[in-house]
């Protein structure tokens, strides 16, 4: 009997500990139209890719003429995932623009959470970008 109670208690704790998932709700009929861009991916950390996945990328121009990028990320797991990211920017000749190597920004996603991260190019001459995702602690 004591063993059964202890096992049930342990199971309850384990189940409670694993529930880090997120529920969300949003308007079904969207007013805004996203300008989605096709992407090219290099995956060296398959573990991170399995957990935090890039769903889509869309871009827009700011009123001042700077490229703005928004990336939709999805945590495929049921637990919290910590990761770091940073953007790099390139001009029309493919050269990395000065001051484009931004800080590595820590971010987290709850289980099954979908989140957007965005960045604005530091120069108007920046036409292309690269997002780097690094596993966090």
């Amino acid at each position: 009997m004591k063993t059964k109670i202890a096992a049930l208690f342990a199971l309850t704790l384990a189940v409670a500990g694993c529930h880090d998932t997120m529920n969300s709700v949003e308007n079904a009929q969207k007013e805004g139209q996203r300008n989605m861009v096709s992407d090219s991916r290099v995956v060296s950390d398959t573990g991170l890719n399995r957990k935090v996945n890039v769903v889509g990328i869309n871009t827009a121009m700011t009123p001042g003429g700077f490229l703005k990028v928004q990336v939709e990320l999805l945590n495929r797991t049921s637990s919290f995932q910590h990761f770091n990211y940073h953007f790099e920017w390139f001009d029309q000749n493919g050269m990395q623009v000065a001051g484009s190597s931004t800080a590595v920004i820590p971010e987290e996603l709850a289980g099954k959470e979908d989140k957007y991260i965005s960045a604005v190019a530091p120069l108007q001459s920046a036409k292309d970008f690269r997002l780097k995702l690094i596993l966090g602690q």
Partner: protein
Amino acid sequence: MKNKIIIPLIAASAALLTGCATDAHYVATGGTQNIVNVGQINIQDYIQAANAATSDLLAAGTLDKVKTPPAVLYISRIVNNTGQQIDTDLLTKKISIALLNSGKAVTTSTDPAAKGYQQENEFMNDQKGQKTPDFTLSGKIIQLNARAGSTTQATYSFQLSLNDTRTGYQVWEGEKEITKIGTRGTVGF
């Protein structure tokens, strides 16, 4: 016999080499290998805060609303409300460099020699005075601590305001909060 001499020699060389080696090495500033302190603003925090402020400011387009671009910006006072002694240039210099590179703003010089030459030029060429700044950038850095048992948490709030010198209004405001958590006496990466 030979082995008796060679083996201690190898052992001594290995010990010497190990003794000379240190674990000091270079890391990328702002990268994931940088030390993280809960009770201290680290370099990556300044970089993050400056990047966030610059991106927000450029995206807002506020600097484009001046009659004669680029906008002239005066870097005003950043109040330090943390418990640490910090050099606010670690934040403001990054912002002014990014804005200058973007071509959207120039900052007023604090160099006395430049000021002297500018006045001399004005006098010699019988010109009007230097264009007054369109905006000033001011702000505050606040530290908020919390503790639960041996776990400590610190939130650093970097608050910045862009003030229109013509109207006196705050025409843009940005805030970046960075929260760090850890157990006492630990540092992270």
